[in-house]
């Protein structure tokens, strides 16, 4: 099958080539010099015009466009770099500021804490002092009262005993003697208590 096709193709090929070259009769038209001069003439004219117009008008424009684009892009990149640098600088500055403010905040915090603690201590000291004073006063009073109480008791005892005697005997006794007796008695009592 394949062989048949190949053979057929070959036959057809030869047939075609025969018809193709038979139709020519004069060989390759490229080698026919009839229009050579015309071709050269028109080649010079068209290529010359093309060359001149491209050189004088079009290529400089394209080159300019490319140049301007290149320079513009370079410029843009430069400005972008600059802005990047600036922003980085600013970021660093911000970081610095943030760090500083953090430190400041810490300092403030510590300061105020110390202040408050100081205040508290001071106030506590004042309060304690006040309390101590008051306690001291109270203790003094108490001790005073304690000291005085014996005398008072003696006095009261003397008075009551004087009255009692007055009632009992109906006669006034010298108060100083009663006092002396009461004193003696209380002394005895005291001695008894101490013993």
């Amino acid at each position, binding site marked *: 099958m394949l062989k048949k096709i190949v053979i057929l193709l070959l036959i057809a090929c030869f047939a*075609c080539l025969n018809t193709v070259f038979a139709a020519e009769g004069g060989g*390759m038209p490229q080698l026919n010099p009839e229009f050579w001069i015309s071709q050269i003439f028109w080649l010079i004219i068209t290529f010359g015009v093309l060359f001149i117009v491209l050189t004088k008008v079009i290529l400089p424009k394209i080159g300019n466009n*490319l140049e301007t684009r290149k320079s513009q892009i370079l410029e843009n990149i430069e400005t972008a770099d600059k802005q990047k640098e600036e922003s980085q600088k600013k970021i660093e500055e911000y970081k610095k500021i943030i760090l500083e403010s953090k430190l400041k905040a810490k300092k403030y915090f510590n300061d105020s804490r110390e202040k408050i603690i100081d205040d508290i201590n001071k106030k506590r000291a004042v309060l304690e002092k006040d309390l101590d004073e008051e306690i001291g006063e109270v203790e003094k009073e108490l001790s005073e009262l304690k000291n005085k109480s014996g005398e008072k008791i003696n006095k009261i005892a003397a008075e009551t005993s004087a009255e009692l005697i007055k009632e009992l005997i109906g006669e006034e006794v010298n108060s100083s003697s009663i006092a002396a007796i009461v004193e003696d008695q209380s002394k005895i009592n005291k001695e008894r208590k101490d013993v």
Partner: protein
Amino acid sequence: MYQFNVYRIGPEIKLGSVDISFTNASLFMVISSLAILIIFNLGAKKKTLIPDKLQLLSELSYSFVAKMISDTAGSKAKPYFSFIFSLFMFVLFCNMFGMIPYAFTVTSHIIVTFVLAAFIFIGVTIIGFIKHGLGYLKLFVPSGVPMVLLPLIVVIEIISYLSRPISLSVRLFANMMAGHTMMKVFGGFVISLGVIGGWLPLSFSVALTGLEILVAFLQAYVFAILTCIYLNDALNLHH
């Protein structure tokens, strides 16, 4: 081979006794040049930072050719940029217009490619002699060759130098002609084999069209880059 025929369009124009009539070849030269001029003029017109399609096309072509020249011939070749750009675009557009069915391929004619190649050859030789004076002849005497071999090498170098325009022109012409002939032959197969057997050559024909478009670009590129290499020899004489 009908597609390679040149015929007169319009009246016969004579310059003295020489026939310079407008032909279909001239027509396609004019069409190619006009297409290049229109496309690149439109592409060069706008000056936006972000290019549109045509602008991108023209600017990419510009930098493509500029890179090609600086890679092969160095920075000294900058003054010849516009010539090489025009050359590349002209050959490329002529090749590409030739790919349109029923169109005429300007570059499939040896006379056209030979005139271009000869112009390049003569121009490069003149540039070489202007830049280096008679020192340009050192191009034919490579350094580090034993004295015994030197006469032979010089002869070979001279022959290779003189054959440059021929190889340059024949390469382009033969590629274009062979491609178009092959497509014509396969197209003929499609007709002669008919509906049953015609599909295989048809698919070949389709594939060949893609190949031919590649060749059209490649040959224009080769033509331009060889010009750059010749220019490099003339500008930077290091052999």
